[in-house]
């Protein structure tokens, strides 16, 4: 009888220990930023399951934000996120999506709860400086070429430090087609050279 009670006690202690550990695990991805306005930030699915690979980092410049627009949380921190798929009528009306429109909307790439970051389809949140990983999810062939320096422009040293560009430095993510340019003047015809 005595022994049986002891066994129950031990089992209870073990269960409590497990729960505590689980709770600690759930708390683990604590955000450094104060997210009190939008309530506790739900952990992104991918943050733990798919830790950031120790992949090669690419020397990219800062993303070409519209001046004064970043950090997005500046305006968004007081707002309750609205996850309903809709056409924005009050803000960001200048953004016309011409990039698989109808198949996706803002929050498929922009994170709902951390407005200063993007997220991949696996839920992992990424910084805007890593947006090439987001683009690479669909454009794998371009991503592969970009990594080795064949897609996109490289500057710097051919046998030293190279400067990469982010996808969004050349392609507007909301309307990615490269826009036509005005050509520089044609050469002078031989007959007109004096």
């Amino acid at each position, binding site marked *: 009888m005595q022994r049986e009670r002891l066994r129950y006690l031990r089992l209870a202690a073990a269960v409590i220990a497990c729960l505590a550990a689980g709770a600690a695990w759930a708390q683990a991805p604590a955000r450094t930023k104060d997210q009190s306005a939008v309530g506790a930030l739900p952990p992104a699915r991918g943050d733990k399951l798919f830790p950031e690979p120790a992949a090669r980092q690419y020397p990219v410049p800062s993303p070409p934000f519209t001046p004064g627009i970043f950090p997005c949380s500046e305006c968004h921190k007081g707002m309750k996120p609205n996850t309903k798929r809709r056409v924005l009528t009050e803000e960001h009306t200048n953004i016309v999506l011409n990039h698989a429109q109808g198949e996706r909307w803002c929050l498929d790439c922009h994170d709902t709860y951390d407005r200063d970051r993007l997220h991949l389809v696996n839920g992992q949140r990424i910084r805007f400086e890593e947006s090439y990983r987001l683009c690479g999810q669909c454009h794998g062939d371009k991503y592969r070429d970009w990594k080795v320096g064949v*897609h996109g422009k490289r500057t710097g040293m*051919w046998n030293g430090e190279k400067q990469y560009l982010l996808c969004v430095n050349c392609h507007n993510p909301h309307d990615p087609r490269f826009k036509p340019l005005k050509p520089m003047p044609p050469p002078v015809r031989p007959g007109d050279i004096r």
Partner: protein
Amino acid sequence: MTRGKAVGPYGEERMPNDRDRDGHAFRMSRRKMLKGVAAVLGAMALPAKDAPASVWETFFQKNFREMSPEELKAVVARLEKEYGAKYGKQVRVGVNPPLEGVRFAYGLDLSRCIGCRRCVYACVGENNQSRNPQIQWIRVLQLNKERGVDLEDAEPYYNPARVPEPGHFYMPVQCQQCENPPCVKVCPVQATWKERDGITVVDYNWCIGCRYCMAACPYGARHFNWKKPGLPPAEMNPETHYLGNRPRPVGVVEKCTFCIQRVRNTPGRYTACVEICPVGARKFGNLLDPDSEIRYIIENKRVFILKEDLNTRPRFFYFYAT
């Protein structure tokens, strides 16, 4: 010896010769006259007696490849002084030799090029080409998508408001840095040659301006200074190389050198055309480095070389990335 009419073996009257004229006033033979004319003309071709020393030095300067390091140093110092005075700024004339284990090659993505000609003008600015009369080392051809790379259908003078134009693609052509360069073969004075790193260069002080190389080049990549190059001092790039972008005299041939003044350094900058291309169509690297961009392109992309049938074996690879 009796004086009289000279009589030939058949008794005919012969033309008077020198011996016959001994007693007469000085008379000049045709041979003597021609010798004198040649001597006078030759003297006129020489620099005047009071010409500055540098003119004599230029006159007796050896071929670049035959100069000793000391001679080369003196030549560089003289050129730097000359250009400095002419353009009113500190000019550096580099003589960097080829890097070990480097063989340069170039890639150009025809699926990306939009024909904006930014490269043409970046090259002119970097390499001190004559602005007037105009010399450009890169020529961008507008081609018809339906006809493909049909050079007879190429249009270099296109000038729409916006490029690319629908139904067209663009192919910039410059020196292909051939492995088997016909221009080098025909030079009668060996003023042009291929360096170990694969760049074909010209010694502007040795070139006699015969333009055989221009006739031999199947890519139209060589250009002649018909007039004294018009290079405004404000636009002159003072970072130069002896075999590359230093200011050229009138009457010599010039060509693309893969920006020799930039690339022959450790670390070396990308060429001006690579750096300016807004679509990233231009790729440059070391063919001997398995991790270089150019090796990736050759190993993974559909690549072609221009006028392959001529066996010039260009080091300039056009490719189609998508």
